[in-house]
């Protein structure tokens, strides 16, 4: 396999990461407090957007919801980063990962910094990190090539979802400058991880495609589409709704997830990554296509 293109991309990403290196520990001026009554998240990114609740809740209630959805969003980042730190550390400088290992050093350093500033934000302004709801001991994938592909595909999907939110909030001048900055700084690093992720996912999928095992490809297609759906569902957290003062939080979540208006939002969140995965013939369609139709 010709890897010239990959080597060149990785070299450029390493050079860019070196040029833009910063200390996360001194990068932000943490304010003493953030008032609850303000937008903590772009209203259009809230899980109620497009539903009757966005119209029926008053602005003060929506702002309170935006606070806790923002803490949940950063908490999800923390848990996602934990998984990717573990999985990338497991693979750096091992056979098959010689090419990206130099970049992995930058990646791990940056992700550790991101996890730190997201945790700072949650703990300083929310007083907590929402717990991870995923299964602590997942069933291991026995096929190493499949496991490697799935790890980097999951990382890429997670980063693309987060990046959509970061880009929107980094530009949203109605948000507090600190909230904008946290999102912008994350995006400024994350684009490199996404470029690397796409290269890696393409490279790791190729040998699986060459096996000619249609059953395996269908299994991966179904799994990744379900993973995308599960990722978006993690944004809907009953604990958030309770903290925002919404009664019947579990039923509220179920109602939002069933609301047909939400499908178009979900489609938008994952537009870039589904287009990429479909173009690579890795998944057959967007998981939200039927819901949005």
């Amino acid at each position, binding site marked *: 396999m010709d890897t010239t293109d990959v080597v060149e991309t990785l070299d450029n990403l390493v050079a860019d990461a070196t040029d833009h290196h910063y200390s996360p520990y001194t990068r932000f001026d943490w304010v003493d407090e953030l008032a609850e009554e303000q937008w903590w998240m772009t209203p259009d990114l809230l899980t109620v957007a497009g539903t009757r609740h966005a119209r029926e809740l008053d602005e003060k209630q929506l702002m309170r919801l935006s606070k806790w959805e923002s803490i949940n969003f950063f908490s999800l980042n923390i848990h996602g980063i934990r998984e990717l730190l573990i999985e990338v550390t497991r693979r750096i400088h091992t056979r098959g990962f010689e090419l990206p290992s130099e970049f992995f050093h930058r990646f791990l350093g940056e992700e550790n910094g991101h996890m730190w500033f997201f945790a700072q934000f949650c703990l300083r302004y929310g007083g907590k990190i929402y717990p991870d709801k995923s299964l602590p001991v997942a069933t291991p994938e026995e096929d190493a090539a499949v496991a490697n592909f799935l790890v980097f595909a999951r990382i890429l999907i997670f980063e693309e979802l987060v990046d959509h939110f970061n880009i929107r909030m980094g530009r949203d001048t109605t948000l507090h400058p600190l909230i904008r900055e946290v999102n912008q700084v994350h995006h400024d690093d994350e684009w490199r991880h996404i470029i690397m992720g796409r290269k890696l996912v393409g490279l790791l999928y190729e040998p699986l495609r060459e096996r000619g095992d249609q059953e395996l490809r269908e299994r991966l297609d179904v799994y990744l589409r379900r993973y995308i*759906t599960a990722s978006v569902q993690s944004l809907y957290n009953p604990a958030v709704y309770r903290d925002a003062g919404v009664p019947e939080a579990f039923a509220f979540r179920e109602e939002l997830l069933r609301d047909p208006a939400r499908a178009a939002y979900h489609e938008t969140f994952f537009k870039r990554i589904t287009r990429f995965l479909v173009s690579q013939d890795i998944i057959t369609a967007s998981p939200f296509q039927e819901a949005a139709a």
Partner: protein
Amino acid sequence: MATDVIEQVRAWLLARNPEVTGIGWDEDLIDSRLIDSLDFPHLLLLLEELAGRELELTPENVVGFRTLRGIRDTVLADATGAGAVSHE
């Protein structure tokens, strides 16, 4: 309380697995593929709703979540048990 709500858990699992007609008390929900890692957060949120509190999940106590008996006897047995964070 636990006996009443366990049927809701069983019904929820059966609804997600229309090809399955029954689930034994000691059937491992994960090994038998009634739920997988992607479904698990849904189950956890349902159990929290039924328990009326947030449930702490650790590698040590996850075994209690893997069977209907474990869910009935440990997860949903006592809404004021150790590690509970009340919704109220």
